[in-house]
C-alpha cells in the first residue's frame, strides 16, 4: 500500500526526522517498505514547457517535430504522442533529466534523422499512473520554466509498504501514523470532526434494517442532501494521485480519501435511486445474478451478503456496488454506508467472484467495528465542505451484534521467558498505550490491557509480547552465542538417501531433479495418476507415478541440445491411487513413495585415443545396479527375474524381488515409449522403490577372516547352443560341484563362423579353496573333471580347447 508522507504528517509530528529514518523504522517494526519515491528528488529536472510549434516529422507519419520553450530558450523535441499540439503547456524533460519509469537519462538523440533535445512526458513515464494514451497537458496558466514539483504539487514522499495479512489496521494513513507515533514516541492526532446538521431529520428520509446480523454486525450511516457532484479540489486530487488512485468526482474521491485515511471502506448510494429510501442488509438464498458498477453481470453464491433497498439488490456487501444505485453527475442526495461486515463472509464472496477490491481487501482482513460512525461522520463533513449540501440531522447506527474490546493480562516476566531479555514495565506500558491500548498497571508483575477493536490480530498475551518486541526493536533482543545441546537420540531420516546419492556418484551418475507435475499421458503411462484440482496447464495437471517419464523428458531436452551421452539418476517421490480408489478423501486412498531411477543412454566411451567407441547397454545397467546394491549389502537378499518379452515400458527387462514383492524393474526402454519423447537412441533405465529398499533390514556386517590357504583356479570353455542362458549354466555348476568350489565366473563369450550358426562359446573360471586347510590338486581335479562331464551332458555342450 502506498502512503504519502505529507498526509501522514497530518496525524503525527515527524519534524526533524529524516525520510531514511522513517523508512528504516517502519521496516524494522514489521511494516516493510518496498519502495520510496521522493518526488522532490525524482522530479527535480522536470519543468513546465510551452509548445511553440508543432510540425510533421518528414520521415515518420506518427512523429511530430515540436519547438518547446522553457521560458528562456527553445528546444527542438521529437514527440510521438497523438495529442501534442502547439500552444499547450506540457511536462518537459530537458537533456540530463532521468525518467522515473525505467530510470533512463534523456540525451541528445537523432530520431529518424532529426535531432531531439528533450522529451515531452506522459503520466506513466513519470510514474504518476499507468496511462500512456498521450502526453500530460497542463493548466494554461502555468508559466513555462516552473519546476514541475511546484506546478503539480509533487513535493511529497511516497512510501510503498507491504502490509502483512495480520495488520488490517495499517491499511490506512491513520494506522501507519499510529505506529510511527509509537516508534518515535510522538503524539498521535485523529482528525477532529464538526458537522453542521442543517438538513432534515435523517429518520424521516432514510431507514436501515439488518436482516443477517451475523454477517453484518453494524451498519452506520449519514445522509447528505442537495450536493453537487463535480471535480474534486486540487488538494484532494493530489492526495489520491500521489498514492496511485484516479480521481473520479468529489463524492467518490471523498469516500476513497476517508478509506485511505482511516481504513473504513465507504459506499455512497444515490438516495433517490433507493426504492423506499430504505437499506436492508440480508443474505441471498438461491441463485442470484447482479450487475456491479463496472457493468458486469455476476452470478452470486447462495448466502452472499447483499445490500438491498425495498425492492432490489443494490450492492454486494463489502465488495462492490451496483450499477443501479451508483453516484451520477446529477446525483443530489446521498446515503453514506459505513459498515462492519464479517471478514470470512466477505472473503468467501470475493474469492468466489474473483473480485478483490480495496473494500473487500480491508473487510476480509477485519475493519474496526468501532470506527464506522467516525468514518460516516468524516465523509459527511467532507461532502458538506467540498460538494455542498446539507447534512441530515442525526445519524443512523444499527448495531445489533456488539463487538467488545477484549482484555488481556500480560505478565512482564513472560516477556523475558519468551524473548530472552528484560523489558521494563514502564517501557512496556508506554509502547502499549502509544499503540492505542488502555493499560491498568496496578498489579506488580501483571498488566491488564484493553485491546481496541482495530487490532483484531491481538487476542492473546503472546500477541502483546510481539507488539512490545516489534516497537522496541528486534535489535534489542540479544543474540546469545551459545546453545544447550540436549542429549536425546539424534535421528537422520535422510541418511539412507544420502548414501544412495553418494553411491550413484561413485558409479559416475549425475543427479537430476525433475518436475513432478506432468501431462496425463505421461503420468498414466506408469500408474493410476492423481489429477490436480486446479492445474496451471494440462502439461502439468497430474502427479508423476514414476521417475522414468520425467527422466525421459530430461533426455529428450538434452538430445535437442546435442548432449547425447548421459548417465543420470534421480531420487524423488511418486504418487498414485491405491487399488480401487479414484479420489482422495483420506491418507488410505493413495500412496506416496520415494523412488530412485538410474538412466543410461548414448556412448559410455566416445571416440578416444585409447579405446574404441562403446555404447551403454543392458549389462552396464545391470553392473551398476549390482555395484549399487552391494554398497548396501543387499545384493544377496534380492532375487532376479528376467523377461525378454516387451511390456508397456521395456523391450526387455529384469526385476529385483524381495520376499515375492517387486522392488525394482528396468531394462531397455521400448520404442513406443521412446517415440512419445522423440528419442531415437537406446535408453536403459532402472527404477527402484527406495522406501522398500530402506525397509529391508540391513544384514549385520561382520569381519571375515582373510584367506590363509591358497586358492586353486581352473578354467573351461564350452560351445553351447545360443539359447542356453548363462544363469542356468552357472547355477547348474554351483549345484553339482563340491563344497570346495567357492565361485564361478563367466569370463569369455563369443560367436563366430567357426563355431557354426546359433552356437556360442562361454568360458568359466572356477575358484576352489577351503578356509581351514590347503587343498590338494587331486581333489580339485576330481571335481573339475566331473563338472566337465556333467555340463557337457546337461547342456549338450562341447568342451573347447582340450
Amino acid at each position, binding site marked *: 500500500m502506498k502512503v504519502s508522507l505529507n498526509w501522514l504528517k497530518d496525524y503525527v509530528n515527524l519534524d526533524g526526522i529524516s525520510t531514511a529514518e522513517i523508512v528504516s523504522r517502519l521496516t524494522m517494526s*514489521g511494516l516493510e517498505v518496498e519502495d520510496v519515491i521522493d518526488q522532490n528528488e525524482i522530479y527535480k529536472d522536470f519543468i513546465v514547457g510551452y509548445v511553440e510549434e508543432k510540425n510533421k516529422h518528414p520521415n515518420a507519419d506518427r512523429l511530430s517535430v515540436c519547438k518547446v520553450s522553457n521560458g528562456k530558450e527553445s528546444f527542438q523535441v521529437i514527440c510521438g504522442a497523438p495529442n501534442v499540439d502547439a500552444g499547450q503547456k506540457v511536462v518537459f524533460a530537458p537533456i540530463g533529466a532521468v525518467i522515473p519509469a525505467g530510470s533512463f537519462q534523456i540525451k541528445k538523440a537523432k530520431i529518424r534523422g532529426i535531432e531531439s533535445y528533450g522529451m515531452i512526458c506522459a503520466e506513466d513515464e513519470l510514474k504518476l499512473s499507468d496511462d500512456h494514451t498521450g502526453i500530460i497537458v497542463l493548466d494554461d496558466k502555468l508559466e513555462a520554466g516552473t519546476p514541475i514539483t511546484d506546478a503539480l504539487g509533487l513535493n511529497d514522499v511516497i512510501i510503498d509498504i507491504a502490509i502483512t495479512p495480520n495488520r488490517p489496521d495499517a491499511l490506512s494513513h491513520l494506522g501507519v501514523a499510529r505506529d510511527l507515533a509509537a516508534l518515535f514516541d510522538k503524539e498521535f492526532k485523529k482528525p477532529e470532526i464538526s458537522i453542521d446538521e442543517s438538513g432534515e431529520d435523517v429518520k424521516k428520509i432514510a431507514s436501515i434494517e439488518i436482516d443477517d446480523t451475523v454477517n453484518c454486525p453494524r451498519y452506520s450511516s449519514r445522509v447528505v442532501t442537495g450536493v453537487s457532484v463535480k471535480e474534486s479540489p486540487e488538494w484532494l486530487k493530489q492526495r489520491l494521485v500521489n498514492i496511485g488512485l484516479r480521481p473520479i468526482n468529489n463524492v467518490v474521491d471523498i469516500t476513497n480519501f476517508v478509506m485511505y485515511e482511516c481504513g473504513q471502506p465507504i459506499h455512497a448510494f444515490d438516495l433517490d435511486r433507493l426504492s423506499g429510501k430504505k437499506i436492508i442488509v440480508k443474505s441471498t438464498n438461491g441463485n442470484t445474478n447482479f450487475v456491479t458498477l463496472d457493468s458486469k453481470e455476476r452470478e452470486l453464491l447462495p448466502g452472499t451478503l447483499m445490500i438491498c433497498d425495498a425492492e432490489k439488490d443494490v450492492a454486494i456487501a463489502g465488495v462492490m456496488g451496483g450499477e443501479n444505485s451508483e453516484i451520477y453527475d446529477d446525483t443530489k442526495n446521498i446515503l453514506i454506508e459505513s459498515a462492519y461486515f464479517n471478514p470470512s463472509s466477505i472473503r468467501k464472496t470475493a474469492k468466489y467472484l474473483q473480485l478483490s477490491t480495496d473494500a473487500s481487501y480491508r473487510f476480509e482482513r477485519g475493519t474496526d467495528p468501532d470506527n464506522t460512525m467516525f468514518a460516516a461522520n468524516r465523509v459527511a463533513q467532507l461532502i458538506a465542505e467540498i460538494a455542498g449540501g446539507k447534512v441530515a440531522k442525526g445519524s443512523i447506527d444499527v448495531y445489533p451484534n456488539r463487538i467488545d474490546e477484549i482484555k488481556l493480562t500480560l505478565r512482564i516476566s513472560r516477556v523475558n521467558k519468551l*524473548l530472552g531479555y528484560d523489558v521494563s514495565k514502564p517501557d512496556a506500558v508506554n509502547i502499549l498505550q502509544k499503540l492505542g491500548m488502555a493499560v491498568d498497571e496496578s498489579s506488580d508483575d501483571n498488566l491488564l490491557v484493553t485491546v481496541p477493536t482495530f487490532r483484531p490480530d491481538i487476542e492473546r498475551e503472546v500477541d502483546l509480547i510481539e507488539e512490545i518486541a516489534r516497537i522496541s526493536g528486534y535489535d534489542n*533482543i540479544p543474540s546469545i*552465542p551459545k546453545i544447550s545441546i540436549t542429549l536425546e537420540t539424534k535421528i537422520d*531420516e535422510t541418511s539412507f538417501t544420502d548414501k544412495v546419492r553418494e553411491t550413484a556418484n561413485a558409479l*559416475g551418475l549425475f543427479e*537430476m531433479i525433475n518436475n513432478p507435475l506432468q501431462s496425463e499421458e505421461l503420468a498414466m503411462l506408469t500408474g493410476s495418476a492423481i489429477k*490436480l484440482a486446479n492445474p496451471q496447464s494440462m502439461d502439468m495437471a497430474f502427479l508423476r507415478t514414476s521417475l522414468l517419464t520425467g527422466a525421459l523428458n530430461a533426455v529428450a531436452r538434452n538430445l535437442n541440445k546435442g548432449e547425447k551421452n*548421459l548417465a543420470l539418476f534421480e531420487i524423488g517421490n511418486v504418487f498414485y491411487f491405491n487399488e480401487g480408489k479414484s479420489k482422495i478423501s483420506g491418507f488410505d486412498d493413495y500412496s506416496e513413495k520415494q523412488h530412485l531411477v538410474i538412466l543410461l543412454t548414448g556412448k559410455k566411451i566416445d571416440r578416444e585415443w585409447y579405446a574404441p567407441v562403446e555404447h551403454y547397454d543392458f549389462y552396464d545397467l545391470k553392473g551398476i545396479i549390482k555395484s549399487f546394491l552391494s554398497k548396501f549389502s543387499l545384493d544377496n537378499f534380492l532375487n532376479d527375474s528376467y523377461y525378454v518379452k516387451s511390456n508397456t515400458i521395456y523391450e526387455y527387462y529384469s526385476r529385483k524381488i524381495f520376499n515375492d514383492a517387486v522392488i525394482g524393474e528396468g531394462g531397455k526402454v521400448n520404442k513406443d515409449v521412446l517415440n512419445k519423447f522423440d528419442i531415437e537412441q537406446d535408453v536403459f533405465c532402472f527404477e527402484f522403490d527406495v522406501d522398500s529398499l530402506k525397509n529391508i533390514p540391513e544384514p549385520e556386517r561382520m569381519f571375515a577372516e582373510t584367506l590363509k590357504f591358497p586358492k586353486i583356479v581352473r578354467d573351461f570353455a564350452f560351445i553351447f547352443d545360443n539359447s542356453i542362458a548363462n544363469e542356468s549354466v552357472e547355477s547348474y555348476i554351483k549345484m553339482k560341484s563340491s563344497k570346495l568350489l567357492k565361485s564361478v565366473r563367466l569370463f569369455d563369450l563369443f560367436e563366430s563362423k567357426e563355431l557354426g550358426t546359433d552356437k556360442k562359446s562361454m568360458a568359466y573360471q572356477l575358484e576352489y579353496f577351503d578356509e581351514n586347510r590347503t587343498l590338494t590338486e587331486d581333489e580339485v581335479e576330481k571335481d573339475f573333471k566331473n563338472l566337465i562331464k556333467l555340463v557337457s551332458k546337461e547342456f549338450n555342450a562341447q568342451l573347447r580347447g582340450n
Partner: protein
Amino acid sequence: MLSSKIEETSKEFSKDILSVKNAEELEKLRIKYLSRNGILPALFDEFKSVPKEEKPAAGKALNLLRNEITQKYNELKDKLSAESKRSSSKVDLTLPGKKYPVGSKHILTQTLDEIKSIFKGMGFSVFEGPELESDYYNFEALNFPPDHPARDMQDTYFVSDDFLLRTHTSPVQIRIMEKMKPPVRAIMPGRVYRNEAISARSYCMFHQVEGLYVDTDVTFAELKGTLVSFAHQFYGKELKYRFRPSFFPFTEPSAEMDITCFICEGKGCKICKDSGWLEILGCGMVDPNVFDSVNYDSEKFTGYAFGMGIERIAMLKYGITDIRIFFDNDFRFLKQF
C-alpha cells in the same frame, strides 16, 4: 524382395564382423560391404526399381542398414587402431589420461547438504514428511484458519477438498510433535509446491529446510544466536545481519532474517533491490495455537521455528539468475557442480 535381402545382409554382416581380428580382415569386410562393388551399393541400385508405394519403407530400412554397417565398421576400425597404438613401444606421457567419470549431486542437494551438516553439528535431527498433504497438516494445525487471508500468502495446488501439495515444509513440524515429546530439535528438508506462473523468478515447486526447537525455556534470543551462527558458518564470519518483524500464522512473534547483500556489500544493487539487504529466511517463536494442536503445554514449553528456501540460497551463492535451470537438467549444467 529387397526387404528380405536387407534383413539377410544385416544378419550376415553381424556374423562376419565377429571374426575380424586385424586390419587385413577389416579391409576385406569393407570391400565386401562398402566398396563400390560391395553389397550395400548393390542394394541401393536395386532400390531404384522398387515400386513407388514401397519406396518409403524400403528406403528407411536401407538407410538403417547403411548406418548400422558404417557405424559398426568405424567402431571396429577405431578399436583395432587403438590396439595397435597401445602395442607401440614408445611412451608418450603427455597423452590425455583415460576417463574415469565420477558423478555429482544436484547443486540443490549439495546446498542442502551444507545446511544439514551445519545444523547437525548443532544437535539437530533430520526428519522428512510427505509432499501430498492434508489441509489439516498444511494449514489448520499451523493456525491458518479456513477463510483466512493468510492462506492467500501461498498459492496452493489442491488434489481434492482436503488434500493438497504442501506449500511449505512446516506440516512436518506438526507430524514430529505429534510423534514425540519435548525436547524436539530437528530440521526438515523437503520439496514444496506453489501454484504460481513459471518464470525466471518462480517455479511450480522448490525446496525448503524447516527448523524446530521446542523445550522449556527456549527464547527468541536463542533463536537469534542459532541462526546467526548458521549464517556465519554458511556465508562467512564477516557478514552483518538484521531481524525484521514479519508475519507467519504459526509463529508469534515472527521475523525475517536479512544479511548484508554480499553482491554489492550493502551499497545497493539490482539483486537486493537497492536495499543493501538480502532476505534469507523466516522464523519466529512457535505460536501457542500450534502447541495446542499437538497437545503441548504452551505455558511450560516454548520453541522456535525457521524456514529457508534452498533455491534462493543457491541462486545467491552461485550467481544463478533463472530458477528454471535447476529443473531443466541440462547435462552441461549438472556437470558444472
